């Protein structure tokens, strides 16, 4: 198991967001966490990325206990984040954003090679590489955000709602990229509201509702249950 989260309790101040969550991601897997918005999916992913601290429970990555690792060193262990809403550095150019992605020492040595890979995967990004990141469209920004994550040469890529706010054709491109990345051996934890797209690529999935994991399993099994329907539609 590459990532092991056991019984995580996460809260903002005294407002609990995630209760008792246990998820894991194995080497080479694509695991998806789905659920209605507000369920706590981003909270969970941000915690794994080191942006938030958890109250109870344990989090291990590659055998390392992440509670001993300060926020800015989490990525050194091989985790990279593609945040919800992209969150590119708008005052930097596209290429600078990518370079920042490869900031960690082990990745910095391979910057040129990583850049080449990212440009191969996203030719459009190469065209725009000297433009300010804030001037790109939503879909283009999403490509850059994913590229930025890849620059860190991660073992596990965290994707937080990559389809948010994007047109269907762009979403298709994004997921094509996700599959390509996976085929190169990167494990992926994908948080998504869009069940259809998530289940197309996921090996396994967890359903998060109101801060709790209410179901897990292989996509085809989950689709047969009514749990998802209840979570999303309330019926």
């Amino acid at each position: 198991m590459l990532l092991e989260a056991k019984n995580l309790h996460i809260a903002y101040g005294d407002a609990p967001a995630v209760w008792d969550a246990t998820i894991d991601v194995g080497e080479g897997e694509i695991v998806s966490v789905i659920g209605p918005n507000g369920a706590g999916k981003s909270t969970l992913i941000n915690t794994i990325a080191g942006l938030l601290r958890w109250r109870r429970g344990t989090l291990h990555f590659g055998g390392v206990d992440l509670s001993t690792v300060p926020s800015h060193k989490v990525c050194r262990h091989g985790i990279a984040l593609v945040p919800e809403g992209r969150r590119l550095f708008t005052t930097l150019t596209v290429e600078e954003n990518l370079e920042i992605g490869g900031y960690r020492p082990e990745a910095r040595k391979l910057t040129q090679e990583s850049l080449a890979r990212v440009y191969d995967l996203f030719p459009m990004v190469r065209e725009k590489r000297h433009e300010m990141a804030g001037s790109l469209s939503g879909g283009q920004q999403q490509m850059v955000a994913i590229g930025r994550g890849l620059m860190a040469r991660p073992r596990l890529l965290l994707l937080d709602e990559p389809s948010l706010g994007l047109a269907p054709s762009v979403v298709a491109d994004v997921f094509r990229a996700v599959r390509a990345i996976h085929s190169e051996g990167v494990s992926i934890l994908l948080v998504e509201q869009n069940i259809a797209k998530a289940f197309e690529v996921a090996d396994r999935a967890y359903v998060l509702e109101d801060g709790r994991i209410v179901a897990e399993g292989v996509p085809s099994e989950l689709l047969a249950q009514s749990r998802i329907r209840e979570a999303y539609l309330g019926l």
Partner: protein
Amino acid sequence: MALPGLALVEQSLITGFLAGSLYGLLALGLSLSWGLLKLVNIGHFAMALLSAYLTWYFGTELGIPAWWAGAIIVPVFFVYGIALHWVFVRFRVSEMSSMLITFALAIIVESLIQTIWTADFRRYTTELANQSFLIGGLYIPKLNLLACAVAALLAIGTWAWLRYTYVGKALRACAEDTPIASAFGINHKTLTYLLSGICAAYAGIAGVFIALIGTLAPNEIWTWIGVVFAVVIIGRLGNPIGALLGGILIGVCEALTQSAVNPAWAPLVSFSVLILLLLVKPKWI
């Protein structure tokens, strides 16, 4: 108000240009700390003045030339900058409170200066002080030119550092979105301490030139505040080249005002520009 002759205008332009570059030098540290650290450091001016007095003192009483004085002052100021930032971090000081605290620091430094060196005007007389290049009928004081060159060098150098080095990019990323920068391995703490030290060092450098060029008096601090804040805002926060160009712009406006109208009205220029800017409130504020 008599319209000045052409020669006077040209000379004013030169004088204003050079004086303005000194404003830019002073504004550099302030612009960086306000733009990238989100701290408003009123004490910046006081530290520059302290550096000026120290330079004058080293030169006049101890016989240490300005360049050596600078070599001593700048590293000490760098350490001071780090220490100051440590206090801000330790006490989780807000942007507003940082303004208040640095304001108080400015007063303390001013009192220190006045106590040690009295309120008498001080002039640092060096060999170069009264020398000028004479080009085409226009006087270009050598020291002012040197100050201008250093200001330009520092502004461009800082800009290039922010633009092209990893650390510079990391700083800019950090200033915009600290948590995400952190997620990619950027150590916010180390960088902010580094920047704070640099800003204080810049105040030290500005002070050396202020000593060489101008007259020193303790309450100079307050006369600069409006000018330099105006320069920082015109030039956009966190933009080193903007600070330099903004300074030159204000310097030229002031000089032209001085030659066309009563010199006493000159301070009004920058304050008025500042008020106008703050009211029009362009997007970059």
